[in-house]
């Protein structure tokens, strides 16, 4: 069993649930109180995969809106990125392309997962297949998640951890 540590960044528009997803994943807690993140909040979680034990240092970066640009310096050295959008707010969907480009300009060739969050809000869900098709090529995988119910959260992080480790192996080879 190889033990490695990896830096993972959560990126996305504001109020899509990045902090809630991290809390759900790391502490298994959900609270529907909204707290805006300023700067960055860092959490730690260890994932055990088939061949690796991966310690994820999750950098929960403040949300992006018209007033706040993505602070790319936080992305430096990241081994994987999770992009989060809000399934009930189509305006957040339109930011995916720009954000992917920003991330790629800073850290190339790292696995990236897209989380469409708030899947528990069934009546307000505004995700069509077209959106998934457009973005399928930009990211490694797309997950519908809910920080409230926990749906898809663990799967997405595990997929990212696997992708990061298999990339290591391919680089080593």
């Amino acid at each position, binding site marked *: 069993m190889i*033990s*490695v540590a*990896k830096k993972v960044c959560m990126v996305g528009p504001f109020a899509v649930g990045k902090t809630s997803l991290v809390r759900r994943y790391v502490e298994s807690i959900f609270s529907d109180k909204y707290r805006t993140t300023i700067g960055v909040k*860092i959490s*730690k979680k260890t994932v055990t995969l088939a061949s690796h034990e991966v*310690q994820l240092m999750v*950098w929960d970066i403040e949300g992006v809106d018209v007033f706040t640009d993505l602070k790319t310096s936080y992305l*430096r*050295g990241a081994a994987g990125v999770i992009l989060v959008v809000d399934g009930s707010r189509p305006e957040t969907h339109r930011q995916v392309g720009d954000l992917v480009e920003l991330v790629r300009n800073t850290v190339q060739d790292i696995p990236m997962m897209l989380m469409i969050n708030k899947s528990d809000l069934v009546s307000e869900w505004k995700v069509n297949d077209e959106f998934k098709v457009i973005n399928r090529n930009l990211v490694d995988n797309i997950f519908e998640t809910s920080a409230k119910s926990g749906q898809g959260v663990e799967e997405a992080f595990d997929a990212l951890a696997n992708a*990061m480790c298999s990339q290591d192996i391919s680089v080593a080879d």
Partner: protein
Amino acid sequence: MSPPPDVGMLKEHKDKEPDNDFIRLRKLLLGPDYDGALNKYISREDDAERVALVLASAIRQSVAEDPSIGEALAPVLDKAFQTSIAQNPSQISNVMFPVMGPAIRKSVAASLRDMVQSLNQVLEQSLSLRGLVWRFKAWRAGVSYGRYVMSQTLRYQVEQVFLVHKETGLLLHSIANEQAESNDPELVSSMLTAIQDFVRDSFNRSETSELERIEMGGLSIQLCSGPHAIIALAVRGNADESVFSIAEETLEKIHLDFSGKLADFRGDRAVFAATDNILKSCLVSEHIEGEEGSKKRPWLALVFIAMLVTFFINQSYRSYQFHAAYQRVISAIESEPGYVLVSSKFDAPQLRVTLLRDSASETLDALFSRIDEAHLHIDVNAHELTFGEIDTAKLSALTLPAPARAVTTLENYQNVIKSINSTVLLFSDKSAALLTESATELPRLISNIKTYARLNRELGMGTPQVLVLGFADPKGTRFGKQKVSKERAEHIRQTLVANEVDSEILHAWGVGQRDGPSMQPELQRRVTLHVLDQSRYSGLPAMIDTRIVPEGSQ
């Protein structure tokens, strides 16, 4: 370099090769390079052979000249040991067995000794005055006793050392001393990088500028940055420059030994466990030296204070004894038959007694030698009386105080009037401003006038009336003198009225300048008060009594 003649391969080659023409052909083709080419071909193994011969001495020489070879070899040896142990664990346990026993015994003995020592220290610190004071101060400051002791005895201490990968902010390795209150070092290290990014972003600093120091309370984080890694020191107290230079040296050493691994770091931190020993050199601390010397008790002052206290205790004890002796003498005289104590006064350090004695009683000397054991200073004024035949001459010589006499209301009234009439208030030049010494007389004057008015009514002396007369000095015009004298009288009248003296009884007059040329001008600038004495019209005894009632006889 010419090849040695006995090189095995060359010889074998020659022996095995029967075709000398072939060799000649090769020599013709290659010329003088033939030997060199052969040499090149065989040189690698030849080198290995020659290095093998000198390897041991080369290592020895290298160690003597540059001690860093040990550090360079350490990771290799670690790996070798690891592999060897993994392959054959029983072998290592066989080798270790004779070493382990004594080592364990030694370690146990050392820990026991440490325990006894620390117990002793704890007892010393808890039971000594300083320990108690520290405990109190720690409680007051809200920190643990141990931390307070540390803050008192340590100038600084590096509590934790983090080796952080610069690019990712991931922790490569960290060490801490036992006292450190360690939180999750991985989070700390990531957060330090994030703070650095945050500061850079927020203040538009360039990529090359580095965060060097974070301070909070007594703790500071010192950051030392290299191309691939950062060393962060958590320091309690005030560290000096030497700590940073140690950190810098350590960082340089790590970059030297692990440069490849730092550049290709992909999250595998196991290799950096080998930095443990290097990082330990950063866990330094400095104790406050000469603490006892610098905080010496002010012995001289303490001795002085003690002497002072002793002196005062002694004095008061002696004074108490003296008074007790004095009381004993008095009561002895009082109880002595034939003696009458008339008065006694303690006038330190002398006791004055006035007494009468019966000429038939015990003599003075005999009495005092009996009752005055402490040999006090006693001034005796004794009057001898012979009972049976009264000696009038001696009786008249008695200086007994006059019997106290009650002062009547009338006499009081007369005294108050006298006091008011004798009042003279002086003013400064050309103004109605009272001189300070005169102003201090006002309270007494006010009280006197009020007493006068009250007694006047009590005694039925008619209407109380007081004239307030203002005077001026010879300077100035007649009109001016008149004016200022009026102002002075009016000022006093108003002051009295303001202090609740009945305005009906006061009459202010300015009389200008009235005094003769021989009177000093400063005494001419005055206000005097005059009570209109109506007693002679009231049918009461006239108040021509000028006798002064002795003070304190009431």
